[in-house]
């Protein structure tokens, strides 16, 4: 039997749903035009008025929003309300030194909680479950997003946050956790660690995992399900659009339901940003229909996927997106954290003595590892090992402070890294081989 948090909304007939989206879009167009200078300017440039938006079909008349627009209006320039009405501020990686900032009003937090409650229940999790929330709590939206949703459902929530695997397993055994929420690679790591400690996973109460924040394959799902003897579900979200809870798999595990009464999703061509034919692959773009803090119109995620509007066996009418198959930009996701090569370059250039040549390598041996090769210069070379090691530590600390994920720095001799004419290939991602 399918369980729902909000059966009426989740099973609403599609024609009703689309009509509702159209009505909300009209209100949204008026709201951003009146409250966000950036959008007023964009509307005026395109010669459109909020009144021109009459139904969901009119969405293509509206301007696009890019990640760089958030950066250019850092930190609060795209907010529709004053800070007085903002109750929470989250942030994720930006493309350079500054993060991407997202402000939430009280209504936004309530709405996000509603979406997360649906998201928690879609894989069949109920108030009877004990949820061990191993997503990071902090500026990252994963921890608090899940916390609010699972608590709303009535689950017993353990706000353990990420890391400290030994303690994760102790709590899991002692508190009889039935659900774990974490990145897929961390779920696998927990399983490996349990095995190394001689813990019999079949004796755990664990039944389900909701894994997200990084791309993972169906093969990895099978592995996680086998080694932990559970069902694992995929979830999608991004902080700009609340955080987790934009979409999630139901018990059918056949695509992630996007909560369409809160979002309009479009699939756009990755070059032209024109809509692609139904069912085709392209870049996901979201319009937030209820956000009041920082409403976004046609926000380009750079995530590549496709959607299906076919009704699901679970009874939900909301469309389903496939797993994200790639990125239309150069963003890397390392251990669930977004990393832009430009951030690394920006950090390196701030350290005196670092030459312009560097190479980023990403590998996955259960969990992701990020390493950066940096060429030494005559100025930075020292006869003393400790001086070189301090220099390397300085770079590692700088990178960690900007990326929030550990990068190992390898110092290499000048001329070692490949010189290419034109655009240098700064990133080698070896993960696709064993993802």
């Amino acid at each position, binding site marked *: 039997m399918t369980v729902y948090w909000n059966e009426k909304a989740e099973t609403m007939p599609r024609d009703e749903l689309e009509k509702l989206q159209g009505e909300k879009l009209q209100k949204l167009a008026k709201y951003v035009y009146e409250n966000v200078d950036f959008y007023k300017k964009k509307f005026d440039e395109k010669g459109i008025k909020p009144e021109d938006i009459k139904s969901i079909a009119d969405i293509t008349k509206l301007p696009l929003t890019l990640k760089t627009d958030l950066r250019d209006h850092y930190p609060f320039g795209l907010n529709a309300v004053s800070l007085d009405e903002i109750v929470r501020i989250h942030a994720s990686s930006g493309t350079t030194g500054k993060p991407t900032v997202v402000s939430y009003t009280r209504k936004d937090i309530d709405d996000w909680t509603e979406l997360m409650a649906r998201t928690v229940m879609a894989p069949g999790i109920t108030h009877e479950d004990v949820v061990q929330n191993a997503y990071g709590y902090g500026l990252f939206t994963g921890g608090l997003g899940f916390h609010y949703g699972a608590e709303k459902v009535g689950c017993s929530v353990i706000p353990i946050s990420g890391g400290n695997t030994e303690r994760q397993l102790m709590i899991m055994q002692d508190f009889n956790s039935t659900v774990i929420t974490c990145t897929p690679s961390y779920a696998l790591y927990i399983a490996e660690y349990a095995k190394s400690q001689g813990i019999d996973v079949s004796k755990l109460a664990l039944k389900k995992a909701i894994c997200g924040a990084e791309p993972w394959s169906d093969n990895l799902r099978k592995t996680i399900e086998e080694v932990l003897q559970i069902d694992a579900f995929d979830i999608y979200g991004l902080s700009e659009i609340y955080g987790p809870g934009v979409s999630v798999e139901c018990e059918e595990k056949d695509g992630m339901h996007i909560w369409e009464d809160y979002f309009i999703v479009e699939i756009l061509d990755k070059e032209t940003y024109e809509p692609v034919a139904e069912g085709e692959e392209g870049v996901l773009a979201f319009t937030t229909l209820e956000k009041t803090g920082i409403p976004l119109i046609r926000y380009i995620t750079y995530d590549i996927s496709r959607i299906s509007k076919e009704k699901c066996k679970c009874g939900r009418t909301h469309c389903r997106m496939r797993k994200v198959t790639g990125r239309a930009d150069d963003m890397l996701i390392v251990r669930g954290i977004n990393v832009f090569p430009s951030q690394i370059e920006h950090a390196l250039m701030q350290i005196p003595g670092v030459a312009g040549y560097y190479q980023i390598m990403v590998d996955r041996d259960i969990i992701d590892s990020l390493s950066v090769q940096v060429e030494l210069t005559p100025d930075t070379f020292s006869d003393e090992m400790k001086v070189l090691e301090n220099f390397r530590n300085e770079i590692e600390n700088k990178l960690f402070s900007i990326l929030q994920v550990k990068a190992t720095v390898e110092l*290499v001799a000048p001329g070692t890294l490949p010189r290419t004419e034109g655009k240098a290939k700064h990133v080698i991602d070896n993960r696709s081989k064993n993802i």
Partner: protein
Amino acid sequence: MLKQISVFLSNTPGILAKFTKVLLENSINLKALSVSETADFGILRILVDKTDECVKILKKNNYLTTLTDVVAVEVPDEPGALYEVARILGDNSVNIEYLYSTLIKENAMIVLRVDNNEKAVGILNNNGIKTL
């Protein structure tokens, strides 16, 4: 005091062969050497017969090099010789960063990188230890 050449080398197969080939092709003879390594790089420290020429050649071949003053002492090749050197320096609060040694004829040569070269040479000589 002697001039030591330090060279930065990546910690990968074939790097030392490539380096020593450069020395061979330029008829440069190694008098003493040591290698310190980390997981990804090493520092090769060498004393050679033609120091200035060697530095020029290495730079021409794009090696990262630096010249360092080191203290070299000649001691008998017998038990207790290093103890004497270390004791004298320790008693006089001279800190040793690193050292390596080689044989010259019947004696041992110990090459020391210390925090105060002049002081080290002075006290070693005062204690009857010959510096090179």
